[in-house]
């Protein structure tokens, strides 16, 4: 019964973000790519927030976000992307997939924590 799903193929980023969120009182489930993320989300309805990398093998973050709304018909979970770049095309696709926010790497825990906590309890 986790609150946050952290999806990133890089174990460094994944562990860092997971550790940070855990140390700040959130329960986190890690996932290694979009496919894994979808499975974990399917298995755990308590997840309120998905933080995901964009570029990943098997299934990228944007596709996963689209499938969350489409296949899973899960409109309640908040999806936030971790990214290094930002193009208008990406933003448009993200908007259509109901992506709520974009966190540009490097991830600044302090700046995002309050908002993330709000999203988890909302």
């Amino acid at each position: 019964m986790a609150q946050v799903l952290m999806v990133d193929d890089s174990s460094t980023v994944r562990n860092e973000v997971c550790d940070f969120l855990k140390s700040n009182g959130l329960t986190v489930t890690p996932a290694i790519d979009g496919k894994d993320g979808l499975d974990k989300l399917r298995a755990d309805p308590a997840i309120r927030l998905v933080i995901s990398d964009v570029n990943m093998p098997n299934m990228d973050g944007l596709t996963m976000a689209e499938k969350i709304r489409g296949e899973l018909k899960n409109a309640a979970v908040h999806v936030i992307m971790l990214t290094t770049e930002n193009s208008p095309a990406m933003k448009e696709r993200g908007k259509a997939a109901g992506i709520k926010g974009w966190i540009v790497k490097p991830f600044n825990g302090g700046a995002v924590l309050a908002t993330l906590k709000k999203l988890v309890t909302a």
Partner: protein
Amino acid sequence: MLVVLSFVAISAIGGYAVFQSRGNASEVKTVTEGIVPSTLASSDLVAQLKDVQLATMNLIAAPDQNIAQQAQEQLTAGKARLQAGLDYQLKHADSATQRGLIQEAHDSLQDYFSSIDDAARFKLAGKNDLANATFYAGVSQYQVNLQQNIQALRVEKSRSTDAATAALNQNLSRTVTTLSGVTLITVLALFTMGILLYRQITRPISRMQHMMSEIATSQDFTRRVPVDQQDEIGKSIIAFNTMIAKIEENSILLKQKTNDIQTMLQNIPQGILTLTEGGLIHHEYSAHLESILETRDIAGRTLPDLVFSDTTLGSDILSQIDAAVGSCIGEDVMNYEFNEHLLVGEIEKRMPDGRVKILDLNWSPITDDADTVVRLILCVRDVTELRKLAAEANEQKRELEIIGEILAVSQDKFHEFIAGAIKFVDENEQLIREHAKHDSETIAQLFRNMHTIKGNARTYGLHNLTNIVHEAEQTYDALRKPNPDIAWDPASLREELAGVRAAIDRYARINEVSLGRKGPGRRGSIERYLMVEKAQIQETLHRLETVNTGNLHELIAARNAVHKILRLLGTEEIEETLAGLLESLPSLADELGKETPLVKIVDNGYVVRNQASGTLKNVFMHLFRNSMDHGLESPDERVALGKPVAGTIRLAMNVVDKQLQLRMSDDGRGLALGRIRERALDKGLIEADAALSDEEIARLIFRPGFSTAAKVTEVSGRGVGMDAVQSFIKREGGQITLRFLDEEVGADFRRFETVVCLPENIAIAVDAGAGSAATAAASVAEAKPAQQNSVAGA
């Protein structure tokens, strides 16, 4: 109102039509229910009469009583019917003629009936002949009369019926005509009303619509649609005008606000721009941005192109900024919070001419009602000057700290520390130079030496120095480890050592120059004086520590204040320097049998470094004594000459031509040129026939051993007079001259002044601005004495 009018008109027409048709209907009813049946009934009368006649005839002709009785009954019934028919006719008579005819018929009927009755009576009485006679003579006669009457009535009735029908027809045709007329009138009225409506409604509406569109397209909200009438349209126009007035009010407010913002953007001394979707710079930005970035080409460009070009930002940082900006605009404001930390706050930007500007960047989002970031606002401030000042202030702060540290150490101990530290640094330098390769013994020695300097510096609380020495010591410490991380690099070690030496030199220099504590130590007034300054230093340090480094004015003020303190450290007013001398004047005057002179000192806003105070004291002790001994006359002489009993000695200090100039003069008898020449002859300094100018004679007083006093007083004339003075001054890098103030060439006594020049750095302007102004004013005053009158010493 028009609608109401049309409704009334149409109702009136309808009402009239209804009224007319009602009238016609009742007429028709009268004709069909009254006149026509009564006419038909009049025809019935004839038949009824015939029935009565027939019954009468039957009675008369009845063969027996029974039949007669039956006929009698028939007759009675026929009579009743006839009577009723006539009564009906009377009731339904609709003219006097008819009534007259009926009356006549009635009368005939009465006669007829009485004849019948007579005949019947005769019959019933059995008198058949009499009955027959009565019947034919009376009854038939009356029957003919009655028949004629009824016939006349029938004719009259028919005529009446025709008349009624004709009247009815006429009435109907009149109704048709009236209704046609009314319809025509109505059509006309409606047409008129249509025109009126067009004029009253359609035209004003289309005019209103036209005006409204015009106002809407021209955006000229000062215009109003004219109100011609007070109907619904008029009211709508008034409402529209009210709305336009509101819009005008709002648009004026909006214009005012826009204007305010424009004015702000034009005048605010800050670079302000906004970023729109796609990271493009909006065309509305503050004018000052152009002067910061030194370009007019701003609108529509991107930040990496305009602001971040020629900066020290790497491409990775630039792409982060780009992604952060892109992630915020058009998205929920939370994205700004997520990525704000990636937006850089300060950059160093190289201008085309090579200057580097430090720009402070301040970002904030502009959001709409839905908390979506619509634009990012960026304030750009050129903080180059501010940073420079802050660095300066920091440097001054450090200097003040160092001063504070030095002052806490006694002068001799400090001197000893500096001498020791320099010795160790020298030794280390030599060690490094002598060893091209790593050598444990050498490194141990280097470390020990540096450790000693650090220990001593720490003992004396010289923290700024300790920090620098510590760095060098750490390097040696790293080198002396079994497997050092760093290599033996003489060049970098020497560089580091040079840093330590510079720091020690700085302490030494501050001690000597700012604090005037040269050498191993002088006790007394200087130390006491510096103790007083310490409080001031602490106050200034505090001021520097609390200064708002973001505020240029505050920073400048603090810097100036600190600068002043630093400048004035180790200085004193000339009056203070000469205080001891001035205090001794009354006793000196007593000794010489003279009045205590008035001393007037003008310092023109300058103070002197107390390094020079010893020299100044010595020089002016001699000059004042000379002035009082040789220059100022005895009270008796002065009274005889009309001068004030007490003489006046003037001393003016100023900076002229990059020199500290001290000009001293008195109102005594002047320079005794005759006696100087005699004395020089006596001393064999000149030949008897030497042709000397006044200036050359004046210069003789600087010759060693020259003395002019008739007897050697206890005050001056000990032969160490002016030549000693001159040597003091020369030792400080200065010179002394005499300058004549009058034009009496060849006279025995000439008015003069003594000009002592010293290096400029001995003088410090208390207030930098006022000092230079005083210099300028003094320069003008200085221009007066002629240059050829100047008498340079030696």
